[in-house]
């Protein structure tokens, strides 16, 4: 423990310990499974990390002062402790045993911030859906004109440079953005099965970067400062100029405005940290929010699927790869099964009208969704919010277009107020993007109700696809945004298309 503390701008060191009786520490450890806890303890005792996760060991000198009531007698060496946890791995037992052993035995003097960060990442790996990620696009800014003060920098849409990201440089400049009355701890982590680098930012309000920051000096209890802490995750996908940010999470009770301001602070700080001299960047929200990192990697990631969703995904998937040197006539994508089972089908009796309609619905669904929207592709989106701004179809038009039906698919929602806020935000956001639609002739005789549609579920587009396959949704008349080809989870529909996006995703 440091003798004295002075206010500083430095970051929190990884070896700083949080008291193991802190409820937040106990809570975060108890979220993990037994296997995760043991492998976590083993990784702490590993050679490289032990400096940041020193366990409580028995010292030779106080051998005579062994506490007989100690349930978890301290081990003598790291090696011994390591073997103990390896043994535990083979035995069976409850998760509470391991958690208690860590908290009250081997790390009774507290868990370091490094350890807590690892605990959180293990939890994230066990529960990948536990965070809600929002995708942002990194865009280059035009260089400022000389001699002009405080001009608003515009996005340089003609720039050919692709932003680059270097973790340690990024962290250094991000630390420079942090205000002196806030202390942060950073931890990088690379998940095993995803091409993305995760950064956990743990923020507390304190002018000190020593243990004072965590124990609290107000005297009203040791967890005072910890309740004001926030955790935010950033994800940097490999080979993509996007960044995913989670909503900040409080350890204690938090007001909405507070967490949003931290979110804003980060959204403002991150582009500055990414920028370099004579190269400035900004972040632009891309209206895509999901709990599923894999979805984000598919829609805003390094691959081909970024601007080829829905039915266009057939152009992006490797499945339809066809070398021009291969002269075998490819069977058209929709008749794949029929051409293969040609022989057997010939002997079947002809389909009746119901079967034919079902087959047609399946083919249409395949045409509209391509290879996307399959139930088990692991790329589910939980929620889509769409605001319709098209004029209400008159009865003749309704018959012609088959509208109206779409509204039936939207589940009735009670929590309108929260959603309205996000929709309103989106309205403001896309309002300035859109220029072309401004000179639309306003027809006063048209009735334009504000219709919001929310789709919710494990995999919204797979659900819509299933409805289309079952013939409940007419696949041919279904608007394009229902196939997920725009790659957004929040959008405003005008003229039957997601506004401001006009389909390109550029």
């Amino acid at each position, binding site marked *: 423990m440091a003798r004295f503390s002075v206010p500083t701008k430095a970051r929190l060191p990884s070896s700083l310990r949080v008291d193991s009786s802190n409820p937040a520490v106990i809570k975060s450890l108890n979220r993990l499974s037994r296997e995760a806890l043991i492998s976590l303890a083993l990784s702490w005792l590993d050679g490289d990390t032990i400096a940041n996760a020193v366990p409580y060991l028995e010292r030779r000198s106080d051998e005579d002062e062994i506490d007989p009531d100690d349930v978890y007698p301290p081990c003598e060496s790291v090696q011994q402790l390591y073997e103990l946890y390896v043994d535990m791995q083979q035995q069976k037992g409850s998760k509470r045993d391991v958690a208690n052993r860590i908290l009250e035995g081997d790390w009774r003097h507290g868990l370091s911030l490094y350890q807590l960060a690892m605990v959180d990442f293990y939890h994230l790996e066990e529960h990948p859906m536990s965070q809600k990620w929002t995708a942002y696009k990194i865009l280059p800014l035009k260089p400022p004109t000389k001699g002009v003060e405080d001009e608003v920098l515009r996005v340089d*849409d*003609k*720039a*050919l*440079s*692709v*932003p*680059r*990201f270097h973790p340690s440089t990024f962290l250094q400049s991000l630390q420079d953005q942090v205000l002196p009355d806030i202390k942060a701890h950073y931890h990088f982590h690379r998940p095993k099965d995803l091409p993305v680098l995760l950064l956990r930012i743990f923020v507390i309000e304190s002018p000190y970067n020593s243990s004072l920051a965590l124990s609290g000096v107000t005297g009203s209890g040791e967890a005072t400062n910890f309740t004001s802490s926030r955790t935010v995750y950033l994800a940097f996908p490999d*080979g*993509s*100029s*996007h960044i995913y940010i989670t909503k900040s999470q409080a350890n204690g009770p938090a007001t909405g405005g507070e967490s949003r301001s931290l979110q804003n602070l980060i959204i403002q700080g991150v582009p500055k940290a990414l920028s370099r001299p004579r190269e400035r960047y900004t972040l632009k929200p891309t209206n895509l929010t999901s709990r599923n990192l894999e979805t984000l990697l598919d829609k805003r990631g*390094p*691959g*081909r*699927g*970024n*601007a*080829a969703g829905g*039915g*266009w995904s057939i*152009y*992006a998937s*490797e499945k339809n*790869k066809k*070398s*021009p*040197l*291969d*002269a*075998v*006539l*490819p069977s058209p994508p929709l008749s794949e099964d029929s051409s293969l089972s040609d*022989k057997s089908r010939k002997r079947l009796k002809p389909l009746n009208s119901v079967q034919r309609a079902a087959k047609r619905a399946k083919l249409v669904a395949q*045409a*509209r969704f391509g290879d996307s929207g399959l139930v088990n592709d692991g790329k589910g989106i939980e929620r889509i919010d769409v605001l319709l701004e098209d004029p209400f179809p008159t009865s003749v038009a309704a018959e012609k277009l088959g509208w109206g039906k779409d509204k039936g698919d939207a589940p009735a929602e009670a929590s309108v107020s929260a959603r309205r806020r996000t929709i309103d935000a989106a309205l403001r956001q896309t309002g300035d993007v859109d*220029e*072309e639609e*401004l*000179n639309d002739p306003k027809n006063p005789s048209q009735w334009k109700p504000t219709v919001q549609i929310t789709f919710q579920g494990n995999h919204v587009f797979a659900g819509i696809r299933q409805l289309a396959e079952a013939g409940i949704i007419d696949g*041919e*008349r*279904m*608007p*394009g945004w229902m196939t997920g*080809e725009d790659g957004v989870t929040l959008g405003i529909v005008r*003229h*039957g*298309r997601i506004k401001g996006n*006009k*389909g*390109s*995703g*550029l």
Partner: protein
Amino acid sequence: MDPTLDELQVDPLDEEIASLKQQGKFLTLKVECSTILSSPSIQEALLSSLNPQPSPKSAALRPRKPRKPVERDEQRLLERSKQQEAYNQQCLYRIAASVTAFKVRDPDPSAVDGGHVLGLRFEIMTRGHFLQPYYVMLNRPYPGNPKFLRIHRHTVPPAIPLPGLAARHLPAPKQQTEDRGEEGTLPSPPKQDIERFVKSLRREIMRYHNRLGVSADLRRSLGAHSSHGLMAADGSLPPNAIVDVSIADTEAKQIRLTWADERNGRLVMDDDGRVVKFMVFGAEGRDWETTRQLGESQGHVEDVAKMLEQFAAGRES
């Protein structure tokens, strides 16, 4: 008599196809079929067999009484042969020209311009193989300017600055009502140049793939080198052997090198694969000595690879 004989003849064929399928030779069968179908003599024979006035030659070939199913089968074969011909032509164009265009229909019922979409196909090759091409789909969403194109969908990876290229060569038409007032003295309205767009995009794609290829080559040559030739008797690697070569940025312009003794190197190349920067970090910051030893090879990445190999072999002995 006739149908039973037909059945008997068909069955061995079916069996043969089934057995070929089992042996995994179905593909060769397909290739043979497509070759036969696309040959001009077969097409002629099919055409003449469908001809209403029977010539003596075709009469000899065909059964005396043309039955309906045969007619239909030949019709289908002819159709298939025409498809095959068209496909062969497409393949030929794709082989000869690295950018080809095609037409797509947007399935969205409210798509702009009646769903007319122009598709561009960019072929890429690596080590003598065609890879999955990149696609760029263009549509015409501007009602006042029917000739102006806009990128609708694409499968180009984010490493290629497609938005920037599109903004340069395919600018959106100016709004007539708004801009007349403010910028009435604008020298010239924006012009779209699809040709230059395609050219520059193709160049970016090729450069990107060449850079990927260079780093893959580097990994292959250095990786093979360190695992076989330089392995010491006790199985440990010499300190100068390179253990890892990886791409460090989105555009594949930077290559990260890791030596066996945990030194780190970073190699930065420009658009054309020339090395512009090269640096080595040791345990205590910049390793100037190694940088100087290797830094003499300012040239292409291939030269650096040679240098690195010599370096790994040289200091060890």
